[in-house]
């Protein structure tokens, strides 16, 4: 029974990592950018929900506003910070992403102060626990798992079955050729950022309902862990991000369950190092020969 409880804990944690890792992987797949600002967009989303619900907005509407807010910020960042660097070396893009991440954190500190505030998670998902015998399952866990799996399925269908999905795959495969075939690269990239940000918005709501405090730093560790998940699964690969997310979630809980709770973070980052050393393309990533 203890083992089963811990499995559910792993599933719950993994589904949030997977949702966030998807955002990393999608953007990387299209423009080869590690968008380190992704975790901070989640933090901004948390503040949007906090402030709108605080102002008396209906919680369901607040969730929609959170997702729209994340999409708006992300597309704006892409437009202002990343698009002018489209032809610049990839390292410039990476440094810009780190800069945006710091900018968002400090901006949040300036606007909302550094103080930790409670997140009105109970207004969005009631804090109820389902009891199945000795097993206790909180409502937020169930919702998290369901929403994550739903969002991932929808994303998969979008990429495989729609015109825009086909365009995304084409841009990912060969940007230059896609452009020659008449695909509007800028539009495809904007849509990719928007979808990634919508996933971040959902992740923000689910994450904060589960871990109900908000401060300007909540996005950084989550972002790092999700990044490790994306690399483990094979960065750029959509199913890889999902597999990686769940693997990291389970690894953390497994280490804790075995009684080595002090080692959870160490194990996560050792996984990153081992993957980078022995299988840089990740579990499901394609090995691509670097053009030198």
């Amino acid at each position, binding site marked *: 029974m*203890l083992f089963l*409880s*811990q499995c559910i*804990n792993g599933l*719950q*944690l993994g589904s949030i990592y997977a949702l966030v890792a998807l955002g990393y992987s999608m953007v990387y797949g299209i423009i080869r950018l590690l968008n380190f600002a992704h975790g901070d967009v989640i933090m901004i989303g948390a503040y949007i929900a906090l402030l709108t619900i605080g102002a008396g907005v209906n919680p369901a509407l607040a969730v929609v506003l959170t997702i729209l807010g994340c999409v708006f910020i992300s597309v704006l960042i892409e437009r202002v910070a990343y698009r002018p660097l489209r032809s610049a070396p990839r390292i410039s893009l990476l440094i810009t992403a780190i800069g945006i991440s710091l900018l968002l954190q400090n901006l949040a*500190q300036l606007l909302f*102060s*550094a*103080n*930790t*505030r*409670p*997140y*009105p*998670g*109970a207004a969005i998902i009631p*804090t109820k*626990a389902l009891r199945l015998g*000795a097993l*206790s399952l*909180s409502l*937020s*866990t169930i919702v998290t798992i369901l929403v994550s799996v739903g969002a991932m399925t929808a994303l998969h269908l979008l990429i495989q079955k729609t015109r825009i999905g086909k365009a995304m795959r084409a841009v990912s495969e060969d940007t230059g050729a896609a452009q020659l075939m008449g695909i509007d690269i800028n539009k495809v990239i904007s849509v990719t950022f928007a979808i990634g940000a919508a996933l971040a918005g959902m992740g923000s709501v689910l994450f904060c309902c589960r*871990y*109900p*405090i908000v*401060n300007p*730093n*909540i996005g*950084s*560790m*989550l972002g790092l862990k999700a990044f490790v998940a994306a690399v483990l699964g094979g960065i750029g690969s959509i199913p890889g991000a999902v597999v990686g997310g769940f693997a990291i979630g389970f690894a*953390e*809980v497994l280490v*804790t*369950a075995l*009684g080595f*709770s*002090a080692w*959870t*973070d160490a194990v996560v980052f050792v996984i990153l190092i081992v993957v980078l050393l022995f299988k840089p393309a990740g579990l499901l990533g394609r090995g691509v020969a670097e053009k030198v």
Partner: protein
Amino acid sequence: MKQTVTKVVALVLAMVLVFSFVACSGNDEKTEANTETTETTAAGTIKVGVLAPLTGAVAEYGNAVNNGVVMYVEELNANGGINGKQIELVTYDEEGDAVKAVTGYGALVDQGVVAIIGDVTTGPTVAVVVESQADGTPMITASATAASVTCEIGADGAVTRVYENMFRSCFIDPFQGEKMAAFAVEELGAKTAAVMVNTGLDYSTGCADSFKAQAAAIGLEIVAEESYSADAVDFQGQLTNIAAKNPDVLFIPDYYSVVALMAPQAAAAGLKTTLLGSDGWDTVLDVVTDPALIDGAYYCSGYSTSDTREEVQTFVKNYEAKYGATPNMFAAQAYDAAMIMAAALEKAEASGAAAGSDEYKAAIIAALDATDMDCVTGHVTYDEYNNPQKSAAIINIKDGAANYWGNY
């Protein structure tokens, strides 16, 4: 390849340029500050530094400390200061970062402060104390509770050296852990206990170690010990393990925001046990989403607003009038720190030594050692390790309020 080298060189040169600009402007500020010091010293003020995190993750503590100090100094200055000299506070925001705190210490000393009130949290305070051994500026912290703040502790846990210039107005981590273990056994009748430790926080490991040592001494069985890292938000795995052991009490020595994260997860893990906390739990009710989650918990604190002593009630009334908020433990301890330091400065001034000289510093330290006064958080005298001797207030969370249980 050659192009890359050129680019790297260009980048390095650009960085050097930027840094030299920063360094230059820094120097300018310093010179200005120094001139300012000479002018004000001539006007007959005593400069006291305040080192605290006014922004950043622990800003809530830093601001409370700063408020307490400012309030005492304003009261003192309004009453004529020290022998007619006004105290001028020089404040430095170290953002809760040990490296910035050490920089801040240097900046304050450069600006001619004769004593420092600070730092606020344990990590940066220890860093500053080690740095201060070179010039021995007298310091008092209102809130750094680790044993290693006022003395160097060897690997075997024994004191190898006392930092003569460092004092505090709060009680220490080992004291809190011991108190809570004894309280659990004597007042709550606990037989088994579990501990959750933040391995990235000296404060947390210090409290947990002394809790375990005391538990072993008085026959409280530790059935589970789990740990987590400083940035962790998920404790579900650890709490599930603890719930399976079903201990009578669970000791969580950490700050309020972690407790707020842990509370709903503990409920989800099916944990039904009395939670015990340390003084970092102060203001936890402002952050926790549902007070029912921590109902019945006990934590120790440096003081309680429900204490009926005149010092406490006057302090609370004046603080509320000035800041429009109820003073927390940090503000009270900071008020005391300022009071203790001001009394020592008065004796040092009376000794006739030149401000900032070694004799002056020695006079402040001798006066601090001899402290024997009634403060807001209790009657304070110092032991040989510069730690105050006083009792802890136990706070009980019940029906969404933090109630004063009594002194223990």
